[in-house]
């Protein structure tokens, strides 16, 4: 009974908002240890690692960026080369076309020349032939005429010089007549 009353009295005094001294001490010590570990050891530790990781990631990103830049430059180079090659091909084609056209033109000129040559040669041949023909014809006609005249007049006209003079005169007369008729 008395014990109960004492306990009751003790409880009456218990105020949950008044901190008991020993607990304050234990709480302070308990927290101080936690704080000390975090402050001095654990957080510097993890911060160092986080920093390293950040750097590693940044390094990786930088590496990737470098690789990308290189790939880009290679691509540019390749594109430039390709464009150059295309340009070159176009140039060659152009050149070939020009050369072809020139060849054709040259050949045409050459053909023309040859044709004209052939025609000229033909003309010359014809002229020569005609000249020769007329020459021989003149002789033959002269001879025939003299022979015929000799037979008719009974006089030999074998003297060549006289003969040819007479024939020439005859022919000239013929030509003059032809000229006058024209």
């Amino acid at each position: 009974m008395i014990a109960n009353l004492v306990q009751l009295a003790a409880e009456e005094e218990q105020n949950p908002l008044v901190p008991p001294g020993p607990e304050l001490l234990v709480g302070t010590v308990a927290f101080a240890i936690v704080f000390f570990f975090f402050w001095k050891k654990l957080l510097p530790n993890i911060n160092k690692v986080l920093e390293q990781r950040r750097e590693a990631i940044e390094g990786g990103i930088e590496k990737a960026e470098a690789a990308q830049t290189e790939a880009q430059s290679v691509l540019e180079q390749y594109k430039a080369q390709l464009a150059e090659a295309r340009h070159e091909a176009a140039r060659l084609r152009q050149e070939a076309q020009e050369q072809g056209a020139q060849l054709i033109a040259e050949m045409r000129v050459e053909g023309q020349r040859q044709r004209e040559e052939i025609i000229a040669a033909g003309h010359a041949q014809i002229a020569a032939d005609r000249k020769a023909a007329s020459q021989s014809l003149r002789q033959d006609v002269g001879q025939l005429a003299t022979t015929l005249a000799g037979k008719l007049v009974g006089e030999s006209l074998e003297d060549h010089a006289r003969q040819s003079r007479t024939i020439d005169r005859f022919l000239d007369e013929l030509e003059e007549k032809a000229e006058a008729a024209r």
Partner: protein
Amino acid sequence: MSADQTQLAFDWSCRIMSDNGCGFPAPGLHSFLFKPMFHIGGFEFNKVMLLALLTTLIVVTFFTLAFGKAKVVPGKLQMIGEAGYDFVRRGIVYETLGKKEGEKYVPLMVSLFFFIWIMNIWSVIPLAQFPVSSIIAYPAVLAAIVYVTWVSLTFKRHGFVGGWKNITGYDNSLGPIKWLVSFIEFFSNLLVRPFTHAVRLFANMFAGHLMLVMFTVASWYLLNSWLIPAAGVSFVMTMVMILFELFVQAVQAYVFVLLACSYIQGAVSEHH
């Protein structure tokens, strides 16, 4: 009475409608009293002190395992530790104080958060089943540390006069009511603030523990004759309360640290 009450709760014969006329052994202040486990000289060592020291042990051990041999490519434990660390650092400190100003206070806030959280979690750990922070001494110590930190910081940052202006919100543009404002600010900042800071945590844990004990004891006490279904309801409520308490424990740790940060933020800011 306290010891008797606590014992009655675990008495096999003490149930509703039992012949010995045993009443409901309701939880009360006596639920927060512990007999000393042993004495060191005149020093009484009780269960709550043991739990407080175990809290230290657990926090330090966990983070030593997680961060002791920290690697750039983290293991599982380190990943969990980093997530917790990052939550406090980025989610609370950088958010309120900014990276530049806050960096200095990260160790304090991280230790506060995990220390408080583990102290709270004891509430639902079998055999322990008591939130250390429901004894006012523990929140009071932590609130005092925060109080000393921000008050000293105020005077260090703004000088003696500037510090008082910062704390009281003294502002000439307010005209004649500036004295009233200053008085209220002085009262609420310097006197009430540490008290509310500690009591907010304490009271939440205190009430939570009362609720848990009540439903737990009731589950046993109602387990007789036709009231057995009621015992079932009480048991379900115990489970619900445990889940709810898990939530409250984390939230209270978060709120405590968030407030600590906002006090420091007020101390470093130019205009209160």
